[in-house]
């Protein structure tokens, strides 16, 4: 029996997430895993925007910032439960993407890049400068989600690291499921069509403005949820979450792993999240190695790591 690509991808993800802890030498690795998942969620959004629809964003960290600070601010100022604050953040991000996306998405290539970049930088500037509200560059505390306590009362006692590993792991799977659904759906097909040839997509009736906007909003919500989860698990947040470098990280992870597929992009998120952990011994070289990896992969494996590795395997089969 042959599995559909969607089922196969989900199966691989579930197995990896469920079985990896068996290999963890210490509880610390749950923490690293959770961090990979947080990035994986944002990167899945980039797959929809860049991999499916072919649009570039260099400012998606702005949405992660909105999601993160929603979790920090809404509980304090609106008395909202942190979980609901995450939803509020996602709604605000989606609305923001809708408003900004309308004019921005008419642009193409580098122009779109610089417009999204400008948007992201504006968000991070507000977070840095509105000290009374956000604590400025020093950051601010984020209240506890409270779910771990509930689980404990219900008889499931997880360490903080374990809890966030499983919580974010499930979020990754849901995120991947949605993205994979979209891929083969009418909307996903239209997105990929406008990526392939915008003029042809328009002549078959695709309202490209509307579809690009939908992809932009969806990917913004992914970034927002990713930011929220980061804030909630760290219980602390700084404006770096919305910074230019974080935007670049998202795009790099996706493209490095292979932006055309959900699995590839998540693989990229894992590699780039693990890189600094592996390089702690050479902390001084971290930046140089990161820069080098970015250049080498793009030059020699332009399709991204995972597709290139898979092709190597397939060639081995023949």
């Amino acid at each position, binding site marked *: 029996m042959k599995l559909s690509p969607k089922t196969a991808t989900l199966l691989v993800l579930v197995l990896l997430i469920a079985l990896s802890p068996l290999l963890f030498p210490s509880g610390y690795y749950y923490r690293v895993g959770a961090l990979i998942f947080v990035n994986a969620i944002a990167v899945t959004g980039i797959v929809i925007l860049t991999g499916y629809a072919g649009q570039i964003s260099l400012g998606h960290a702005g949405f992660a910032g909105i999601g993160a600070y929603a979790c920090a601010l809404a509980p304090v100022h609106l008395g909202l439960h942190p979980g609901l604050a995450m939803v509020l953040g996602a709604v605000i991000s989606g609305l923001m993407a809708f408003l900004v996306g309308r004019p921005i998405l008419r642009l193409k290539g580098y122009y779109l890049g610089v417009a999204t970049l400008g948007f992201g930088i*504006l968000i991070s500037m507000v977070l840095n400068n509105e000290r009374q509200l956000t604590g400025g560059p020093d950051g601010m505390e984020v209240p506890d989600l409270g779910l771990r306590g509930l689980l404990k009362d219900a008889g499931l006692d997880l360490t903080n690291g374990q809890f966030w590993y499983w919580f974010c792991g499930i979020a990754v799977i849901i995120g991947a499921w949605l993205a994979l659904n979209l891929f083969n759906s009418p909307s996903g097909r239209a997105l990929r069509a406008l990526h392939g040839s915008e003029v042809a997509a328009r002549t078959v009736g695709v309202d490209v403005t509307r579809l690009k906007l939908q992809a932009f909003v969806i990917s913004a919500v992914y970034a927002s949820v990713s930011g929220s989860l980061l804030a909630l698990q760290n219980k602390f947040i700084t404006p770096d979450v919305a910074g230019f470098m974080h935007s670049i990280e998202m795009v790099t992870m996706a493209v490095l792993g292979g932006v055309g597929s959900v699995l590839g992009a998540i693989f990229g998120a894992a590699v780039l999240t693990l890189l600094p952990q592996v390089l702690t011994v050479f902390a001084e070289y971290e930046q140089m190695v990161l820069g*080098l990896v970015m*250049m080498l992969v793009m030059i020699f494996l332009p399709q991204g790591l995972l597709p290139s590795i898979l092709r190597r395997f397939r060639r081995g089969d023949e």
Partner: protein
Amino acid sequence: MPELLQFLFSGVTVGAVYALVALGFTIIYNASDVVNFAQGEFVMLGGMITVAAYAAGVPLPLAAVIAIVATAAIGVAMNKLAIEPARGAPVVSLIIITIGASIFIRGGTQLLLGKQIHTFPAFSGDAPIRIMGATILPQSLWVIGGAVVVFIGLWLFFTRTLTGRAVLATSNNRLAAQLVGINTRFVMTLSFALSAGIGALAGVLVTPITLTSYDVGLALALKGFAAAMLGGMGNPKGALVGGLLLGLLESMTAGYLSSQYKDAAAFVVILLVLFFMPQGLFGRKSTERV
């Protein structure tokens, strides 16, 4: 009135630096259709290498020349090792490659020259010059003068020399340029050398005013990129006007509105320009061929 003049002076000084960075973007973009996000690192290298050479006992003018030549060499190396092999790659890949190069250069500089903030003496002293109640540093005049010289020099180069015309021809139509026997690889090498050298010069000129450290490049790249977009990508005149406008805008915002949000002003304007004039002030409008 002296207040306005004061903001004007600082705006033009910063604007001249942005214009030089934007010019660097423009030269490389024209030769290769690549937007080089490592452009700001060239400015950083210009300042930092001068600092290092000066600290090692080299006289300042010689240190500056060394910095410019070394940076130009790094630009050429970047083209040969990272850009040429990726010819024809999609825009996203090229963005990641040049950002990778920028992170690499930044990391390397941090490793070799440290994280401290550096400077070296201004070329003509630190005594401010008074003009109608406002003051300007002699070094600012160096920056503005340097920018003027570079722009005039390049204009002469592009219009009066055979090599310059070859560069222009390549930017208009690479294939046609190859057909008439122009060595387009050489044109790209030259463009990276020029662009890196100009960036480094900007770094040398501005360091006594703004100081420098390994991590100043990114912000400069973003501003320079914004200035280039504002003026219209690929147009040297646009780079000059865009850079100056951006500098003035920043200093006026800082002076009259909020110094915290001076950077925001730049990006708000960029967004507005892109919304209403997607091709920038002097950009060409392109028609898609189907």
